[in-house]
C-alpha cells in the first residue's frame, strides 16, 4: 500500500531522530563506557539526532553490549519484545558479535544473535566510539534506502 503524507513524516522522523536504548547483556564494561563516551562532548552522537532513552517502549534502536549470560538472556528477549516496530539491534563489541573471549564459558550462551536478530555488528575490544557512530550512521542510511524503495502516494 502506498504511503500517505503522515506515514512519510513518521519515516522522516525515524530517520532523523532515532532514539536508542543501551543494554548490557554481560559485558566487561569496556564497551559500555565507550557507548556512553559516544554521547559525550568529544564524539557527541546527539548531533545525528540520537537520544538515549531509559525505557525500551520509547526506543527504536537497541544498542547491546557483551556476551549474553544465562541470567540476562530472558531479560534481553523481554526488552526486545517491548520495543515498538520497526526496531533495530546494534551489537557493540566482539563479545556481542560472537561471544568473543567468553565464548564457551559455562554461563554464556554466545553473541547477541544467539537470542535476538541483529542488524549491525561493531567488532572491537572495546569498540571505539567512532566505530559505534559509523555503525549507527550506516544503519540509518540503510533504513533510508529501504524507506525510499517503498512506494509513496506522490
Amino acid at each position, binding site marked *: 500500500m502506498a504511503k500517505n503524507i503522515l506515514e512519510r513524516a513518521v519515516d522522516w522522523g525515524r530517520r532523523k531522530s532515532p532514539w536508542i536504548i543501551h543494554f*548490557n547483556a554481560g559485558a566487561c564494561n569496556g564497551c*559500555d563506557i565507550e557507548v556512553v563516551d559516544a554521547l559525550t562532548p568529544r564524539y557527541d552522537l546527539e548531533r545525528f539526532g540520537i537520544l538515549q532513552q531509559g525505557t525500551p517502549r520509547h526506543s527504536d534502536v537497541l544498542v547491546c553490549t557483551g556476551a549474553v549470560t544465562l541470567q540476562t538472556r530472558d531479560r534481553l528477549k523481554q526488552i526486545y519484545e517491548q520495543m515498538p516496530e520497526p526496531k533495530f539491534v546494534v551489537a557493540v563489541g566482539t563479545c556481542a558479535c560472537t561471544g568473543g573471549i567468553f565464548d564457551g564459558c559455562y554461563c554464556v550462551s554466545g553473541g547477541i544473535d544467539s537470542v535476538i536478530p541483529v542488524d549491525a555488528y561493531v567488532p572491537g575490544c572495546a569498540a571505539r566510539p567512532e566505530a559505534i557512530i559509523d555503525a549507527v550512521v550506516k544503519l540509518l542510511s540503510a533504513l533510508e534506502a529501504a524507506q525510499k524503495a517503498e512506494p509513496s502516494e506522490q
Partner: protein
Amino acid sequence: MSKITIPIGPQHPSLKEPGCFTITLEGEKVVNAVVGVGYNHRGLEKACEARTYIQDLYIIERVCGICSHTHSTAFCQAVEELAGVEIPRRAAYIRVIMAELERMHSHLLWLGVAAHEIGFDTLFMYSWRDREKVLDILAELGGNRVNYGINTLGGVRRDLEPQMADEIRAMLDIVEEQNKYYIQLALSETTLAARLSGIGKLSHEDALRLGAVGPVSRASNVDTDIRVIDKYAAYDEVPVTAITDDHCDVFGRAVVRVLEIMESIKMIRWSLDNLPDGELTAKMPRRIPEGEVFSRTEAPRGEDTHYVRANGTDKPDRVRVRAASEANWHSVKHMLEGDYLADVPIIIAAIDPCYSCTDRSIVLRSAAGERVWDWAALRRYGIEHYKKQGFDASKIKIAERKIIR
C-alpha cells in the same frame, strides 16, 4: 502505613550495567533493600583454569573494562611470585604510571556518572570531556582506549618513550587545572553539598564491620589503602598519601575521589621524573611451580584481591578474583535503609558499582543462615538450577583450545 515493594532493574535508566534492587518502601522511606547481582556472571574463573597463564592474562583483563589494569597487575604479581621472578624496576614504574592514569580516568568517569544521577548534566559533560584527554594518553601508552594490555608476565609490553613523558606532563597540566575547578565545586558549591550531604550514611564502625573498601571506607575515615599498607609494584618508592575524610556520607565519597585525582597527578609526575632505566621484562618460565599466592592491589574502587593456585603445569589450578565492588555491596544495603527513594540512585552510584567485577560470588545466604559452598556443591547447584529452567548445563564442556607455540 502500607508497604510497597519496587523492583528496580535489571535494565534501568540510571546505570549502564544490569543489577536488580528490590526496594521496600514505607511512604517515601526505604525500609528494606535487597541487592540482586549476578547478571554479569560469565564464569571467567573457570575459563582461566582451561587456558594457559599467558592466555589468562587477557581474560583477567576483561574482568572489568574500567579497572582492567589493576586486575592484570594483581594476576601478574601472583604468577610472578609463584615463579619467583622479580620484575625490572622500569616495568614496576610503568605499571604505577598506568595504574594512576587509570585511577584518574575512573574517578573522572565516576564524577560524571554521579553528577548525572543528581541531575547535574553539565558536570557530567565537563568531566567526561576531560576524561578523553586521559584516555588519549592511555591509548598511546597501551595501544587501546580500554583494556590496554600493557602488562605481561614478568614486566610490561611497551616502553615509555621520552617524548611520551612530555605529552603526559602536558595532559596532566590541563587536567590538573580542570580538577582544581572540580575540587572547588565539590567543596564550596552549596547546591551540590546540600544534595550530597547526609545521605547514604556509613559510620566509621559500620564501614569496618561491613568490610567496606576503597574510597567508600576512606570517606568513613578508615585509613585503608593497599598502596600504603601493602606496597606493591613501585609504590615502595613513589610517595603515596591516602586521602581520608570524616563526612561518612556521599559528599565525603565525592571529596575523597576528587582529591585522589590530584594525588594521582602528583604521583605520575614524580614517577616520570624518577623513571629508572633498564629492561622491560624478566624471563618467565612457561610452567609455574606448585604453590598458592594471594595478591592484592588498590583498584580505583578499592582493594582488589586475586588468588592463584598453581599445580606445576602451564595452566592454573584455581583462580579467584574478589574485586572491590563485591566487598562494597554489603554496605549498600545498610546505606539505603532509612533514606528516601529519590536518593537511591546516587547512593548506589556513590560506591562506584561495577557489576562485571562483582559477579563471581560463591557464598550464598539462605533463610536458615549463612552457608559456604564448595566448588563441587556449587556446580551441582548450578546444574540443578538451570535444569529446572529447561537448560541442561551439564552437557556444556569448556573447549580445550589448541595452543600454537
